[in-house]
């Protein structure tokens, strides 16, 4: 699914130079359920942004489904984000003026899906996350858990194989958070690759493996939390 070779990301603002990622080597196979953990500033979100083609590395090679993506044009990257990746954010990032239906429909519109097909798919997805009765509700008319479920439905809009979630339970209570994690398990069982950034080790320990980041470099652990030294990651 994912192959990263010597990935570096450097931010330069005036005279300040900050290495967010330093020579990351990482392989992710199909149908893995991975947690990325690490202290603040360790590069977790930067890594996820690169994985999801929201950003491009300063150096290194990145292969997503055997396609080299770091050299793609902005339009091609948008195509990848639309078809191959589904994002779930901590802050939900729903369009506040659009209904649940319209939020989920948005990536389908960008992919060129026809109206009738869109309607069926949106309805199926919202039913799947338990919000079939809230299609016309706007985000302001939903709880945090409901908004995150809409976000998950949106992430699944074009049936991507890769789901990336950045602190998906960060703004939720324990119960809602557990519901969300349960949905991620279901997605993993469906055959997708699910990668979750989390500070919550109880969630991380539910994953198949843990990738620990520190100062822009990668360590690894398994579902039990065992820590390994920095090395090339292969399964």
């Amino acid at each position, binding site marked *: 699914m994912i192959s990263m070779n010597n990935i570096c990301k450097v931010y330069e603002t005036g005279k300040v130079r900050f290495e967010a990622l330093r020579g990351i080597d990482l392989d992710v196979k199909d149908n893995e359920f991975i947690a990325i953990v690490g202290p603040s500033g360790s590069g977790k979100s930067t890594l996820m*942004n690169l994985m*999801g083609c*929201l*950003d491009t590395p300063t150096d290194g090679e990145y292969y997503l489904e055997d396609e080299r993506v770091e050299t793609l044009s*902005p*339009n091609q990257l*948008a*195509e990848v*984000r*639309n*078809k191959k990746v589904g*994002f779930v*954010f901590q802050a939900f*990032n*729903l*369009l*506040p*003026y*659009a209904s649940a239906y*319209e939020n989920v*429909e*948005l*990536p389908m*519109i*960008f*992919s060129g899906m026809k109206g009738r097909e869109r309607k069926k798919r949106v309805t199926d997805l919202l039913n799947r996350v338990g919000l079939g009765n809230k299609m016309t509700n706007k985000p302001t008319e939903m709880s945090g858990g409901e908004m995150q479920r809409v976000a998950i439905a*949106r992430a699944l*809009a*074009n049936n991507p194989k890769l789901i990336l979630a950045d602190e998906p339970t960060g703004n939720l209570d324990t119960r809602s958070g557990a519901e969300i994690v349960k949905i991620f398990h279901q997605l993993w069982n469906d055959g997708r690759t699910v990668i979750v950034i989390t500070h919550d080790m109880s969630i991380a320990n539910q994953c198949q493996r843990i990738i620990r980041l520190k100062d822009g470099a990668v360590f690894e652990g398994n579902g039990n939390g065992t820590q390994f030294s920095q090395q090339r990651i292969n399964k």
Partner: protein
Amino acid sequence: MSLSILINVFIRDFRKQRKRMLLTLIAILWGTLSIMLLLAFGEGLRKQMVADQRGLGDGIVILWGGQTSIPFQGFGKGRRINLHPEDVQYIQHSMPEMETVAAEYIRWGAVVKYGDMILNERINGIYPSYKELRNFRPQMGGRMINELDMQYKRRVAFLGDSLQHRLMPNVAPEDAIGELIYINGTPFTVVGVMEHKLQMSSYQGPDEDVVAIPASAFETIFSDPWLDNIIYKPKSYDDIERVKSRLMEVMGAKYRFDPTDEFALNDWDLMEQAKAMYNMMLGIQIFLGILGFLTLLIAGVGVTNIMYVSIKERTREIGVKMAVGGRRLYILTQFIIEALGITFLGGIIGMAVAYVMTELFKMIPLDSEALAMLGRPTVSFEIGLIVVIILGIMGFLAGLFPAMKAASINPTEALRYE
């Protein structure tokens, strides 16, 4: 769905930035109103000027005698060339290019009497074709000098409207028909009073002060040996220079002057003047349009400003759309359409207000000559189309630069934006 989202966004933005949006809309409305009114009044003024230009005559050339400057066939230069009554028929027969040829006599300081009123006025001995050539149109109930008047040298008079009012202050124009006036002691029957017309130029004083009698009657009373002017209208104005050359040849053959001698006869080409007037008025209209456009341009800056503010506030939204696969072109198009929406909304209201204002202005009675010169403002289809095109271009450009900024936003930074 996209259209409903666009409309929803527009309404949401309007609610969030009510005051700023309203001011921008008012600016567009004002700019559109300005350009529409300036163009409409410019159009009305141009039409009025052109019409006034026709007050003297439409497509005619006025010819009068001159003095030779080139020796020719034994004749020296400096010889006076005078026009004779038979020249009218001569030119008409010799030149098939001519549609109408007429002539006039002019006598100044004739005594014109009606009752106790005595005036010193100009008398014109004219041909019946003056009705079309020089726009001598009679008011209802009267008539112009006709062929029978000419044939029988009738003592009939056609009065200018202003002259009639001065000569007969207590007599309405329609009641002046059939009244007797005295011209140098000779009685004349009034057969018509001229319809009022605006006249931009003249060569003998305004036509509204004319006392016109048949040229044949003039000849018997005043015994003028020469005509003052010959007036002609060619069938086509396309080849007018050739017609003028030919006329010089025809008249030169009769009066024995060099056809190339431009001083032998003098002419005043009203069509050339009308063209010059048309071009000048068109230039004024373009100038007014530019003024209006500059006003609208300022409003366009307001649209750009509000779009920049809107984009800044919706940075995160743009990031979300990019994250789920929205291409830059979509982002670009969305904001350009919003800018066009604001522009056209203000523009349509402005155009409607301009139309209502011009229609109301048309209801004002034009008692004042100054107002009459202004003409009637006209919101023509062409003006509407020009304004719509300007609004479209302006709205597009006003939205383009903010839209390009939006489309170039880095999605990761946009998603972090608070």
